[in-house]
């Protein structure tokens, strides 16, 4: 029995259990650690180094210092892609968040056929970006497409959408709204986590629907909104498939995203050093915005558990 075992024996058993634990843990983690070093950390460092070289598949690598970055800042096409990516991210993400939240608020009511509506709104998020792009290419078709036919009914001659350099980027943004279903589900889950007694208390205090929304729903939902917006921004900065398939960056480079620019430099012109510099600029932008967002979160995100610490 444990009570009779000597201290030495006890310590020894604890010790062997502990050694076994540590060994088992690292054994379990071994694949991930190897994978992380080989497929993430190694390539990450390598790509930073590469961005200081003029490098392609066939010629010898030449160290150019910050040369690639200097060239980038002077490359009008890169600057354009930067602007397009920023517009896409900063328009599509807030629009998408607002749409998702509005739908979630509606579906949080006890409306008949809830499961059906939820599925209808969510389904576009299940299919591939390629399928969405191919479908919307036809919907945006100026002659036979759905949108211009609908506009014709109300007497409007629609633009050429993805074939028109002013309308191409807005077209991609409109299309992105079709896939807000996943965000909608997250908001729905967030809404269902808000305790009803908060609403009841607010009601007793005489708060109307609007005030209950601003003073109960929004603060309680702010962690979900925060998380969603961060994830969506990171994804939006990397937009590629839509413009690659639908417009190939055109017309007149009006939908040239940063990743499409990178793809061309790396895999069509094999300028690996230059493309690595683009990747690092993209990475830096994403890190900056994520950190900025996390920093600002204490101003507007409300965590229910926080108060206890004060």
């Amino acid at each position, binding site marked *: 029995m444990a009570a009779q075992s000597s201290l030495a024996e006890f310590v020894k058993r604890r010790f062997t259990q502990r050694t076994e634990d540590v060994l088992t843990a690292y054994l379990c983690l071994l694949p991930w650690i190897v994978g992380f070093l080989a497929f993430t950390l190694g390539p990450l460092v390598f790509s930073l180094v*590469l961005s200081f070289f003029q490098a392609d598949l066939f010629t010898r690598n030449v160290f150019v210092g910050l040369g690639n970055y200097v060239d980038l800042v002077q490359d009008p096409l890169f600057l354009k892609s930067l602007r397009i990516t920023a517009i896409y991210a900063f328009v599509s993400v807030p629009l998408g968040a607002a749409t998702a939240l509005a739908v979630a608020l509606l579906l949080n009511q006890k409306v008949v056929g809830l499961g059906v509506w939820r599925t209808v709104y969510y389904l576009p998020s299940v299919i591939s970006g390629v399928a969405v792009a191919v479908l919307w290419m036809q919907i945006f078709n100026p002659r036979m497409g759905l949108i211009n036919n609908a506009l014709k009914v109300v007497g409007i001659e629609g633009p050429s959408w993805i074939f028109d350099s002013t309308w191409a980027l807005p077209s991609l943004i409109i299309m992105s709204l079709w896939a807000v279903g996943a965000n909608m589900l997250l908001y729905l889950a967030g809404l269902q986590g808000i305790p009803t007694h908060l609403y009841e208390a607010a009601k007793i205090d005489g708060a109307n629907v609007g005030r209950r929304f601003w003073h109960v729903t929004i603060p309680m939902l702010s962690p979900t909104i925060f998380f969603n917006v961060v994830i969506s921004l990171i994804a939006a900065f990397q937009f590629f498939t839509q413009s690659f398939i639908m417009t190939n960056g055109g017309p007149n480079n009006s939908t040239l995203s940063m990743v499409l620019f990178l793809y061309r430099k790396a895999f069509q012109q094999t300028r690996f050093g230059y493309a690595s510099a683009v990747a690092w600029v993209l990475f830096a932008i994403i890190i900056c915005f994520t950190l900025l967002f996390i920093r600002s979160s204490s101003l507007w995100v409300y965590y229910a558990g926080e108060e206890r610490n004060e």
Partner: protein
Amino acid sequence: MNSMIDTALISNARRVWHPFFRQLGLLVLVLPGASLFLIPWLWMLSTAGKETALIWKTPPVWIPPVYHWENFIKAWFQGDFFVYYLNTFYISGMNVIGILISSVLAAYAFARIRFPGRDILFVVVLSTMMLPRQVTLIPLYMIFSELGWINTFKPLIVPLFFGDAFSIFLLRQFFLTISRELDDAALIDGCRRLGVLFRILLPLTRPALAVVAIFNFTWAWNEFFTPLIYLDSPKLFPITLGLHRFIGRAQIDIQFLMAMTIVSTLIPIGIFFLTQRYFIQGIVITGIKG
């Protein structure tokens, strides 16, 4: 007293009438949005069964007088969609196997075992989720090209046998919901650490394994960027690349294109309908996009 009775009466009346009008009001708000989301699907279905002349008609004909089901068969054989389907099944299946094996082990270590460096390593896992993949893309391409892996499935499969951050995170969250007392009891009874994982935790977290499998299968099915980078020959293409190749053909009829777009989405949609409960649960728990 009187006023109390009054309020009781009013709320009673509300209980009868209010819900009806409330439902009506809600439906008026829900229906237009839902139709906007649904119409592209219906249009795609309608277009896929049309003959060429009908497609260019304005105003559009929603229900073609004859629905040409043979469009699907013709398009299927025009592109090599059978090959694309087989490739996609293979790639997605291997992804799921690789991710399950490696991520279950890592998640177990993070959730259940105390060891030096655990917290730092877990932060590393979380931060890799935020990493844009473009930043490792070019070195990986160069490495895989040195290894002679370009134009093989290996770059799409092998890395996943080394764990996937999302799946590790998700499985860890699930493991944490299961009481530790079960582990301790098994350990006291002389069970080894790994025995605890296979005999206690895994049988209890089958739904979590299902969520991980379903998500990763769907993601792999929909993946475009990675195969675009690594695969050149059409006989290796997954369905996304196949569809892209199909558009690229000089004179492809729109109805054929729509038919194959529908065909390419059948598996993810089918998976979603069959496993809706797991699907939604998984999205909610991890907070990630489907």
